[in-house]
Structures are given as structure tokens and as C-alpha cells.
């Protein structure tokens, strides 16, 4: 069976065949989820962000420029949804005068033990503590293998800026991983 291109699926969706959009979602849901996850570090929230991103993509599909890449476009929407999510969460935390915590509280001794036991956890925690922009760039580039030009499209900045963010991001993450949490 022929695999339909993104453009064909978009045309079919706009013609009222919503199943075509389901196919588009299946094509990009994993990468969308991972980018969403990089903003919240909670599975349920990442699914909510992904859902909002796809719904917004559907609603805006008519304005999608055909010379652009659908994947970059939907990731940009996800990125924006992620930024909104972080803003809302920050606002909620301020309103409740609560310190934002993403994970259940773990005391310092337990956390040190975890860190030493598993370097992946250390890397995960390091990523979580980074600022969103650096983290998302690292996730897109090194976890998902998205080319720098596409990341620039997602983050709406120059390729030079993406390189700079990546450079700083790697250094910041490395420092977070090697130093005591």
C-alpha cells in the first residue's frame, strides 16, 4: 500500500476526511510527546500538551503554508503549548505561594543515593533543572536528531542562536550532572 505524504494527508483532512489527521498524528505523536515531556516531566501533562498541540494544529491547518515542513510546524505548536504550560504552572505556583516541585519530595540523602546509583537518573535530573529553552533544544537535537535548521524553525530563531543554545545547554547540563545536586 502506498504511504501517503504529509501534503496528501493534509489535503484529505481539509477535504473533511478526519481519518487522515489521525494518520498524521500517528506519524508524529512520539516526537510531539517527547518535546511536550521536556516541558513538564510528567506523563499526563505531556499527553495534555500533546493533545492541545494536535487540536491547535487541526484548527490552524488551513493556515499551514505548504512550503513549510509539517513536522517542524507541529513541533513549533507543541513548543508554544509547552511554553504556555510552563507559564501557567509558574503562575499557579506563585498564586499558591508554593515552591514548584515536579517530583514527589525526596530527601537529600535519598536523592544522592539515587544519583550515584544510576547515571541516567542523574542525566534526567540535570535536564529537569535546566531552563526550558536549553532543555528543549537538547531534546530536539540530541534525543530526536532534529537538524539545527529545523530546530531554528521550531524555536523561531537563527541557526546560530540554536548552536549557541546547544553549546551553553551542553555545558550547563554537564555541570549539573557532575556537580552535587
Amino acid at each position: 500500500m502506498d504511504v501517503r505524504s504529509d501534503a496528501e494527508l493534509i489535503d484529505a483532512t481539509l477535504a473533511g476526511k478526519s481519518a487522515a489527521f489521525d494518520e498524521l498524528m500517528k506519524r508524529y505523536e512520539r516526537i510531539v510527546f517527547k518535546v511536550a515531556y521536556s516541558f513538564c516531566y510528567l506523563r499526563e501533562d505531556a499527553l495534555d500538551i500533546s493533545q492541545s498541540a494536535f487540536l491547535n494544529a487541526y484548527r490552524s491547518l488551513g493556515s499551514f503554508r505548504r512550503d513549510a515542513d509539517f513536522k517542524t510546524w507541529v513541533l513549533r505548536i507543541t513548543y508554544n503549548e509547552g511554553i504556555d504550560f510552563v507559564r501557567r504552572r509558574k503562575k499557579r505556583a506563585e498564586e499558591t505561594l508554593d515552591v514548584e516541585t515536579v517530583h514527589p519530595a525526596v530527601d537529600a540523602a535519598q536523592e544522592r543515593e539515587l544519583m550515584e546509583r544510576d547515571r541516567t537518573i542523574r542525566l534526567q535530573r540535570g535536564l529537569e533543572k535546566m531552563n526550558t529553552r536549553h532543555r528543549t533544544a537538547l531534546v530536539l537535537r540530541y534525543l530526536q536528531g532534529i537538524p539545527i535548521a529545523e530546530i531554528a524553525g521550531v524555536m523561531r530563531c537563527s541557526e546560530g542562536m540554536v548552536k549557541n543554545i546547544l553549546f551553553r545547554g551542553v555545558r550547563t547540563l554537564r555541570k549539573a550532572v557532575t556537580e552535587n545536586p
Partner: protein
Amino acid sequence: MNESTCIETQDLIEKRSAGALGRADQARLDAHIAECAECAADLDLVDRLAEEEVIPEPAELDLARMRNSVMREIRAPRHGEMFRWAAAAAIAVAVFGGGVFIGRQRVAPASTMGGDIKVKTAKQFVKAKTMGGEIQIDEVDGSVDATTMGGEIKANVVGTGAGHDVALRSMGGDITLTLPASFSGSFDVELTYTKNSSRNYTIKSDFPLSVKESPDWDYDKGSPRKVITGTGGSGANKVRISTINGNVVIRKK
């Protein structure tokens, strides 16, 4: 080691990640990291990011659930079909936007890609659809089927007996229906309101209806929402009304 060299090395690391590092570049990279512990550590970190599962793979079941929620929003039949046309509207409104006015007609089918629809009088039936705008039907002696993606609907049905079915749907806006006092039919009204709305929407009817409100917020369809339903009546005709974030008023005349 000065930073500009390190930045150049970052480019080489990038090329390496993209699988585009030639032999000469590989040699430059090797030479640099042999001297620079910082860049060697960077390279190691980049490799680890690519190899280790620092962001978990989503479960198939979770993804299917997420897709289903999106598709429910898109495909929701009749009540709450907010998005299926939204995409089309986004394309077409600028091109076809404008109102439709229909004077005296036996039947009145009308469709616009964005704009108001006004029908003065019609017999037999009115079928009107707009991707965004108000629908006003001053008088119809027959059935009505009116849908707007966003806007108020006002319809005045005259005449009695069979053949006066009413279907009014707005994806956001008030709906006012006027019926003859002797109108005979069953009513099925659905008013959905979202958590971020003013939440003070009501169903008011001169015809007796049993009105119920869902106790809990439904989080499965995008914005959290509750539904108020109004049902009652019996007879030859069917009246179906649905709106989101709008009031419903049914009057006797």
C-alpha cells in the same frame, strides 16, 4: 583552551551527530578533545543523551487515548462539533466571507463560509449553515436545520402539525427559538459550557422541560466542560438544540 576553538569544536560535534563528519574534521575533533577536557566531556554527554533513555517512550495505550480524545473533538457529531469545520473556515472565510439574505422563498437552503444568514420568510424548510456568523430566521412554516460555527441563532417557527422539526446548533452563542403555543413535539436540548467561560448559561423554556446538569467536569474533550440538558415533550416533531457557552431560550408565541 580558548572558547572560540571550543565553539568551532561544537560545530564538529554537531556534524558528528548528524553523521556528516569527514575524515579531516574527525582528525580535528580528535586533536581538540585530546587536549580539551571540557569538549571531551561535552562529546561524552552528547553521546549519552543520544543513547540513554532520558525521556521515556510514551506507552502505546496513552498515545491511543490522546489520539482518541483529539478525534472525538474533531468528529463529535451534532453536539459539540467545533473543529471539523474550523479548518475549512480558516481557509474560506477570507475568500467567501459575507452575509446571505433570503427574502420570501418556498424553501431556503443557504450556506456561507463565514458571515451572517438572514431568512425573512420560508415555507417547507430552511437549511442554513455558516462557518461563523449569526443566523436569523424571521419566519418559517416548516422544518429548520441551522448550524453556525460561532454566533447567535434566532428562529421563529410558525404553523403546526407534522413537518416542523427543528435542529439548531451553535458552537458558541445564544439560541432563541420561538414556537407556536400549540406546538407538539419532543425536545432535546444540550448546553455545554467550558470551565474557562462565564459559566452562567441557562436553558429557559416556556415548554416544560426536565433540566439536568452534569455534576463533574469532563476533561476528555479539550477544555474541561459540563453539560446542561433539557428534555421533555412528545409529538410529531423533534426539536434538537445544542450550543456551547451560550444560553438557550424557547418561547411560546
